[in-house]
């Protein structure tokens, strides 16, 4: 009973706030509530048990359930949404047209929490669509021509991904016995489905696009680069995890499918390095962070892929843990990028030092959540080549994050008296503390490992040496970095511009043909031809 109430409140409160935005007066007063909207979700993550919540009748029901991966991600996502909401409210103070931002924010929040909780195929797809539309609206809030383009690219890719997903979900539903639409049943039925391969390909392509897998990662730098700071924080932190969570839930991780797992892992690892290589040529902190997301999501997908290849059901837990850590840190760092840009002089180090700790944490700095995350996924990656690549990726990440810190420091306000308002600095500090503490809590609470194991000297050293090599490389980058070629932000989509011209020319041709078909004599003849074709189709087949 309590669980039902908690789950209803988690999704219902943001949704109710969204509906309340219909009234303009309420809409204008909404910003202070943004920080409170995710609180019911936080409560649900902490106190709800795993009883499913079913809304509907025997014909069709929406179901929600809090499984272990969902709980981990919901907990940290709620913290991030709350902090970012407070940050956003500060930015919106005194703004005249806050309405659009607030509506998109609440829509994205509803979709995000909903996807984390959804337990049936249709509800999942619906909430994912809400999430995508809301998030593209958030990108649009940048207000510039680039924001418009980035929003279009984001929404376009999201919808393409959802088209793949829809096909995959229909196949899942058809293959699931007893007409069940529950994700759990559908995933369990995949290995025996007559369309197993096609289903897996559709799901992996659809979710991979949304997770930012190379080569369909280009929306990330475009979108995060132009979105307002709090929006970029929740998108890179929470929103993108929806697809990772979906991969964890949909893929039958307890059955070994190396034909799918290994290619998935390979693509993921490629992305992990690709993000680093392009990222170090960038100079805006938000863009560098975006490429770091490309890299980290690639790594996460590689973990899931290895789990699928080995039929290791435990991969779900560690992958969620890795995702939860990345969610906290990446959200926090985006907030840091905003705070640092409005801070100067003496206070700067106060803001930069925590950022440095978190950033290096992604590379695996000992005692941080990042080190725990790397430790947790280690068993899944236990394979000679993959293990080596994982270590190399840690080196690359360290290099990229040091580059980020340098860009971040360079982006500080030139005014030495400038200080970020408390309304933005405080959420950032809160996120810093959460990113440090919560992973340790989760690590022991979920039974991935114990603190004493994680603190053994050998393990600390194993986490440290990639850092040192990364630092060395970073020094090299600063010394010789100016000789590197510069990749445009959103690399592939920029390079593919000429292809658009070809598409436009095809469109011209098609419009011409359509014009000819609309001429009366042509249309009259088409009519007669059609009679012959239809009659013929019946005649020859009927005989």
């Amino acid at each position, binding site marked *: 009973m309590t669980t039902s109430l908690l789950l209803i409140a988690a999704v219902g409160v943001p949704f109710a706030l969204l509906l309340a935005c219909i009234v303009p007066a309420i809409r204008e007063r909404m910003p202070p509530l943004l920080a409170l909207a995710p609180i019911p979700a936080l409560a649900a993550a902490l106190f709800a048990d795993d009883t499913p919540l079913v809304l*509907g*009748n*025997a*014909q*069709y029901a929406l179901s929600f359930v809090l499984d272990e991966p969902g709980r981990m991600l919901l907990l940290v996502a709620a913290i991030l949404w709350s902090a970012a909401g407070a940050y956003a409210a500060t930015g919106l103070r005194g703004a005249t*047209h806050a309405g*659009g931002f607030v509506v998109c924010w609440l829509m994205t929040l509803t979709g995000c929490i909903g996807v984390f909780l959804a337990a049936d195929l*249709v509800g999942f*797809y*619906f909430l994912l*669509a809400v999430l995508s*539309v809301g998030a593209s609206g958030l990108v*649009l809030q940048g207000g510039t021509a680039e924001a*418009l383009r980035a*929003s*279009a690219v984001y*929404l*376009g890719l999201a*919808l*393409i991904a959802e*088209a*793949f997903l*829809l*096909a995959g979900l*229909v*196949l899942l*539903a*058809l293959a699931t016995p007893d*007409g069940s639409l529950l994700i759990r049943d559908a995933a369990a039925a995949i290995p025996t489905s007559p*369309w197993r391969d096609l289903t897996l390909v559709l799901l992996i392509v659809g979710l991979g696009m949304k997770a930012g897998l190379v080569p369909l990662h280009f929306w990330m730098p475009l979108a995060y680069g132009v979105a307002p700071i709090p929006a970029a924080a929740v998108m890179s932190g929470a929103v993108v995890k929806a697809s990772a969570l979906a991969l964890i839930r949909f893929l039958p991780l307890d059955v070994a499918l190396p034909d799918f797992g290994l290619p998935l892992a390979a693509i993921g690892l490629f992305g992990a390095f690709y993000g680093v290589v392009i990222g170090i040529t960038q100079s805006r902190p938000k863009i560098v962070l975006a490429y770091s997301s490309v890299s980290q999501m690639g790594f996460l997908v590689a973990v899931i892929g290895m789990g699928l290849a080995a039929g290791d059901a435990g991969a779900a837990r560690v992958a969620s843990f890795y995702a939860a850590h990345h969610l906290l840190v990446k959200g926090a760092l985006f907030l840091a990028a905003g705070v640092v840009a409005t801070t100067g002089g003496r206070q700067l180090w106060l803001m930069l030092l925590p950022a440095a700790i978190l950033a290096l944490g992604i590379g695996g700095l000992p005692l941080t959540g990042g080190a725990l995350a790397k430790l947790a996924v280690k068993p899944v990656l236990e394979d000679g080549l993959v293990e080596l690549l994982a270590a190399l990726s840690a080196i690359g990440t360290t290099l990229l994050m040091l580059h980020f810190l340098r860009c971040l420091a360079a982006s500080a306000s030139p005014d030495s008296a400038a200080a970020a308002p408390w309304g933005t600095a405080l959420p950032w500090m809160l996120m810093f503390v959460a990113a440090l503490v919560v992973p340790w809590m989760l690590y022991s609470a979920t039974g991935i490992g114990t603190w004493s194991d994680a603190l053994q000297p050998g393990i600390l050293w194993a986490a440290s040496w990639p850092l040192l090599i990364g630092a060395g490389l970073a020094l090299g980058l600063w010394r010789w970095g100016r000789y590197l070629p510069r990749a445009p932000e959103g690399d592939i989509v920029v390079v593919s511009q000429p292809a658009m011209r070809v598409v436009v020319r095809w*469109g011209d041709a*098609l*419009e011409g*043909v*359509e014009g000819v*078909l*609309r*001429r*009366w004599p042509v*249309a*009259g003849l*088409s*009519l007669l031809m*059609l*009679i*012959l*074709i*239809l*009659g013929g*189709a*019946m*005649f*020859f*087949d*009927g005989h």
Partner: protein
Amino acid sequence: MPHSLSTPDVTTPGGLLLVLAVLVPFVGVLAGMVLGGRGARRVALATLAAGLAIAIAIADTLVRSGAAVVYLLGGWTPPLGVALRADGLAVIMLLAVAVVIGGIGVYARADFGTPPGVREARAPFVFWTLLLAVWGSLNLVFVSGDLFTLYVALELLTFAGVPLVSLGGQPETLRSALRYLLYALFGSVLYLLGAVLLYGAYGTLDIGLLAARVHPEPVTWAAAALMTVGLLAKTALFPLHLWLPPAHAGAPAAASAVLSGLVIKGSWFLAVRLWLDVFVGVVTLPSAQTLAALGAAAILVGNIVALRQARLKLLIAYSTVAQIGYLFLMFPLAAGLAAAQLDDAAAVNGGLLQAISHATAKAAMFMAAGLVYTTLGHDRIADLRGVARALPMTLVAFALGGASLIGLPPSGGFLAKWLLVSAAITTAQWWWALVMLVGGLLTSAYVFIVVVRALAPAPEGWTPKASVPCYQQVAVLALALCSFLLGLAVLCPVDVAGIGRAVVPGIGSP
């Protein structure tokens, strides 16, 4: 194939309601003509309310009895007499049309009022009487059980629709109306030729009797091809759509909503009736594939051409060309399911839902475009700045209607797509699923363009050219919401569309 379609020899309880559904709008037409001027509008609005009540009553009767509602005119049984018959398909269409026409009526109250000081103005008088005439003819199309009555109903529908195109009276709209009329006549004469051939071969025009009598032979094939293509011309399925874009884009917004949302569904419905209930054993899978191939071409060409339009109303008109395509994808899916001895409910319900969600969404979108036109004084897509501020509700309605066309959940378009894609996969015709998914993407592109342009802030000091009454915005939003929430029909405990339809015995729904 066994058939339970033959008309029972009795009028069922509530059968008289069918007569009312057809008669009440036409009585309204006559009353409107007699009273004229302001009276026409009052009569029309009262009739809309009464007609909605009748449609609800019919639906209630159908669901309670679980069988088709039948009325034998004058107590004569077919083939000599004429039967009115409403099964699940017909009742759902009756209800949907009543709702959409109601929404359009509320919207048009503002646009087609007789100005004060004038006893009678031409456009309002014509609009209100023709609106009722369209409605009456549509109802007749849905409940009629006789191919010749259906011919008359379709002609009435065309005669009522054509003047709606040229309400404005400009040369361009007159020209599009004439094109529409001539092409529709071309189609209907072919339909009539087919019907005549059927009579010559089987001696009846009653749908139920024909379904039992037809068998595959050249004359039946010829009749089926002639009738189908005639109906396609009236439905404007690509490449027979020459009349549609100028006619639908040139009419006043409320008239466009009627034409695009409802009128084309009349001939489509009849095509469904013929293929599903009359010619089941005659039409072959390749011929059904031909229809769907035209539908697929319509989806691709219509959507791409829509993307390239500079005017909002033309964009929506081309979007209709594309959406008509979706309506024809159900034919091979239903045929495939039937061939595999499976229940064809997924395909039929999918097609029906697509039709209804398009009717509601497209009516809302055309009316939204009308409000935009009134407010801005133009409908150039490149210059929709300020719409979001002046017409927030309308923009939301447009976006929701667009979401339904794209097929985002929980819209009717989504449920339709889900059912059709399922049917496509079950019958191993995955290419139709592909077309539907690609079509959804193209649709999303133009909906996005329009919404984003409308969201752009207005230039400094800009004021709307005219303000629109709030109830018009509410009517548009209500129709859009109908479309957007239609997917919740999945919660409906009974398969209403299946009531009274031919069922392959032994195989229930899943």
